[in-house]
């Protein structure tokens, strides 16, 4: 069940993506979440689990073919000639297949861009993905996503798993995994270099986060404490770990593959905990494909291959991350001069421009992005406690125009559940039934204005609308506050709306205090394909993420609770759908989701990434996927000129 063959097969069958994803999403949730046996290691050839999913896949394949016929029909309707398109697609497929079939070559240093600031060395204590982007190559998780689109799971530190009932998960732990034997972390006297990974190590990580206590007894900022609290107890028995959940939770197993759930070595974690915000490489040890050798915020990070990695081993000799360029000119110079091997940007403009000029030497992959863009309105306080005003705002947001402006059209509108969690999202063809997402903007605006007037909007005086600094400081997006203000002013034929910027450092605490100003920017990431936990966190009464104080025991709470425990996908999906419909009818209660965008990742041809085709996959999951399979081809014609300039030693 290797990911490579799966993709090739799907592509060869020219199955329409939506259908395939819908099918395998069900399979993913169903099979992986509910199936009796989980698909393990890539090397293991388990026929039994394949059989379970295969029948379903066969059924869906028939459905898919019907859909394909429909899609083809749509193609002709949109003036694209079939023969030309087919030719193009076949050529593209052949190119893809050709690249897929190349034999990987070992060696080389891969250079990427990294973030600028890191708040801790401990994955359990971080809430921010820059830290994870580094640690994901150094440490391992229990499970990981082999295919983030479908939610297909595969083993990492666990070689296989079983789910005998809705409340129990039994993990078979992999043999022969050892902690790094060399590097600053291994040389640290507080760590034990090279020893075998034990079940106790894993249990320590889990219980530590569950209890949420630091060594000194105080509460620590453990971001996944709520998640791990679903475990009531852990039994360890002869190479297997049994998790006994407190209650039935169908979403739990996917969470094991959550990017943040990296496992650290207990003795080192304890020893460095007091100084975990002091970044240095000797505080990190892992079981992953790379060993951390340097970590200097503001300068760079480097890692070298772990010769003892349990999997077929990493390809590249080492990784170097250089500090984020921050300036688009510098980034562009860096990429075009082959000093970084990849480049991406939420604004696809520059990346597309570069690819245009270097079409034959660079490769574009389009990735859906888990950072959702939303408008937050504070329905706790005047004047927004009048839901008519909130709904007016929701209707007035010109989502599609924003996608056009900021992302050149690369994006899709999202409802309360983003389209990235496709198995749970309202399908794109159906979401247009809602005024806020309607294609007929004029009608929506009529409704919006009626609500605005009814709620007394024109009497509100000047309204400050906040965009985050991180968004507005991007060179190409520096007039965002004005764009948002204009959008609302035009919608309501007024001049009340004024755009301002604030840093997340000010914005986030105000969310928790429920004193926040109206807002437009990114909101917290989606982390797994299953949307139920996110919906519960946002809308369940009293949930920590429910900063709008939504309290709907019948319409929302009951349904969410039922959905979380529900093992049958169709039933669960139905419930979530009902909740979403209700939420949208109420102006999303102020949590007005706008869209998720897609961005192109450009790489030089000499870099072969793991995700070899376009995916709907999440950008930050790519870190652990790429760690193993990404490789450099020095024989590729584009490689010329690369070795001449190399990053300076850190």
């Amino acid at each position, binding site marked *: 069940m290797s990911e490579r063959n799966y993709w090739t097969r799907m592509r060869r069958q020219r199955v329409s993506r939506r259908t395939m994803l819908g099918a395998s999403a069900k399979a993913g949730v169903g099979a992986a979440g509910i199936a009796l046996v989980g698909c393990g290691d890539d090397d293991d050839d388990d026929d039994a689990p394949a059989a379970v999913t295969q029948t379903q896949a066969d059924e869906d394949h028939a459905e898919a073919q019907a859909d394909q016929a429909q899609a083809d029909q749509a193609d002709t309707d949109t003036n694209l000639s079939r023969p030309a398109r087919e030719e193009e697609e076949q050529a593209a497929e052949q190119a893809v297949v050709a690249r897929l079939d190349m034999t990987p070559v070992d060696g080389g240093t891969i250079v990427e861009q990294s973030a600028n600031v890191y708040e801790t060395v401990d994955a359990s204590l971080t*809430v921010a993905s820059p830290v994870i982007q580094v640690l994901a190559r150094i440490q391992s998780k229990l499970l990981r996503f082999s295919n983030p689109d479908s939610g297909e799971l595969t083993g990492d530190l666990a070689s296989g798993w079983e789910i005998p009932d809705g409340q129990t998960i039994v993990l078979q732990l992999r043999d022969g995994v050892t902690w790094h034997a060399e590097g600053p972390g291994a040389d640290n006297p507080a760590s034990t270099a090279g020893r075998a990974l034990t079940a106790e190590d894993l249990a320590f990580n889990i219980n530590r986060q569950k209890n949420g206590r630091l060594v000194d007894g105080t509460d620590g900022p453990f971001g996944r404490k709520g998640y791990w609290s679903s475990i009531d107890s852990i039994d360890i028995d002869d190479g297997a770990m049994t998790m006994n959940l407190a209650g039935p939770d169908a979403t739990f197993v996917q969470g094991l593959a959550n990017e943040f759930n990296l496992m650290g070595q207990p003795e080192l974690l304890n020893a460095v905990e007091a100084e975990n915000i002091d970044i240095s490489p000797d505080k990190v040890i892992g079981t992953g494909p790379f060993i951390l050798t340097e970590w200097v915020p503001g300068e760079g990070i480097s890692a070298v291959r772990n010769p003892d990695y349990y999997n077929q081993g990493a390809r590249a000799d080492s990784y170097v991350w250089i500090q984020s360029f*921050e300036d688009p000119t510098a980034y562009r110079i860096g990429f075009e001069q082959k000093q970084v091997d990849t480049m991406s940007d939420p604004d696809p403009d520059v990346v597309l421009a570069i690819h245009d000029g270097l079409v034959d030497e660079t490769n574009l992959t389009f990735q859906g992005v888990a950072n959702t863009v939303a408008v937050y309105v504070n329905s706790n306080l005047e004047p927004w406690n009048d839901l008519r005003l909130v709904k007016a705002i929701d209707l007035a947001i010109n989502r599609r125009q924003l996608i056009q402006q900021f992302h050149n059209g690369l994006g899709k509108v999202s409802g309360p559940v983003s389209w990235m969690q496709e198995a749970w999202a309202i399908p794109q063809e159906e979401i247009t039934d809602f005024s806020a997402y309607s294609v007929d903007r004029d009608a929506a605006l009529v409704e919006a204005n009626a609500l605005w007037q009814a709620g007394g909007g024109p009497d509100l005086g000047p309204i400050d609308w906040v965009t985050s600094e991180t968004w507005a400081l991007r060179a190409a997006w520096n007039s965002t506050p004005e764009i948002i203000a204009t959008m609302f002013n035009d919608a309501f034929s007024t001049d009340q709306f004024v755009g301002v910027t604030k840093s997340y*450092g000010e914005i986030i605490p105000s969310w928790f205090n429920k004193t926040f100003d109206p807002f437009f920017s990114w909101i917290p990431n989606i982390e797994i394909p299953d949307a139920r936990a996110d919906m519960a966190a946002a809308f369940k009464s009293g949930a920590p993420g429910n900063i709008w104080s939504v309290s709907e025991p019948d319409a929302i709470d009951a349904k969410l609770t039922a959905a979380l425990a529900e093992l049958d996908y169709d039933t669960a999906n139905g419930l979530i759908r009902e909740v979403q419909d209700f939420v949208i009818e109420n102006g999303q209660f102020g949590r007005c989701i706008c869209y998720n965008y897609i961005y192109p990742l450009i790489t030089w041809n000499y870099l072969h990434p793991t995700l070899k085709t376009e995916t709907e996959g999440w950008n*930050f999951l790519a870190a652990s996927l790429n760690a193993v399979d990404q490789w450099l081809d020095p024989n590729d014609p584009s490689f010329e000129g690369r070795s001449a300039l190399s990053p*300076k030693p850190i």
Partner: protein
Amino acid sequence: MQQYIIRRAVLNVFVLFIVATMVFFAVQVLPGNFATQQFASANLGGVTPESIARAESVLGLDKPVVAQYGTFLWDLVQFDLGESFRSKRSVWSELGRAVPYSMELGFLIVLVGFSIAIPVGILSAVHQDKLPDYVLRGGAIFALAAPVFWTASIAVIFVLKWDLFKIDVTGQPHLWENPQTALQWYLIPMFAGGIAGTATTMRLLRSQMLEVLRQDYVVTARAKGLRERTIIMRHALRNAWLPVLTVMGLTIATIIGSQIVLEQMFNIPGVGRLLFQSIFLRDTPLLEGLVLVVAFVVVFTNLFVDVLYGLLDPRVRLA
């Protein structure tokens, strides 16, 4: 002379004290601090007020302002600039890395700039209000008026599109390590900055030359039949250049820390870029240290230039 130097030096220390106080309280008044700004650069997860508060206490940001000010001054007197919040390296160490780059860039900018400004200044003075003056001055003024970031952006695109030469934004070699690569890296910024940065010098030289050229001794020299060239170089220039020297000194003094835009665009890890980053990150020790060092350079270069001026110009007596 000695008394003068000593007195000026003492006054300079007083000035630096004012600068230190200014920057300290400016940072205090800025909304947010390093703890809150950390999450600004990151993607969002479950950030809580507790995690921010915890970070603040570790950094010592929750102590009362007066106490922090006291610690700050006390450390300063011992030349202890503290550690950067972000990299945890000492501020002196960060400076040690950044200053050489800024000096290199500054040196090159000044080199380019004065190589252009001085001939242009002289020539346009000599041919005042005639065609060469118009062309040169017009051209120079046009170049001086074009924003540095604009010309640099355009130049970069040309270099990339036509693959003219390599700009090493990640290797970042020093001039002495790898002169050719370094020079290529600095090429666009030094011309963009050089052309723009020496406006005052050119103008001043021109006006000084104009004044001198009308002096009696020049008229006499002409009457004596000396060649124009000799007059200009030997007599006029020698008397005109002293004030220009002062301004050149001032330009050099302020060049460190003023090249923020160019350093950002070309990823030059110099003082300017560090200053800019530390403002947005609220990296207080780094910001304070950098500002103080830049101020130190400015005031003591001024002193040096004044002393030089006093030594070179017999008409000036420094009391």
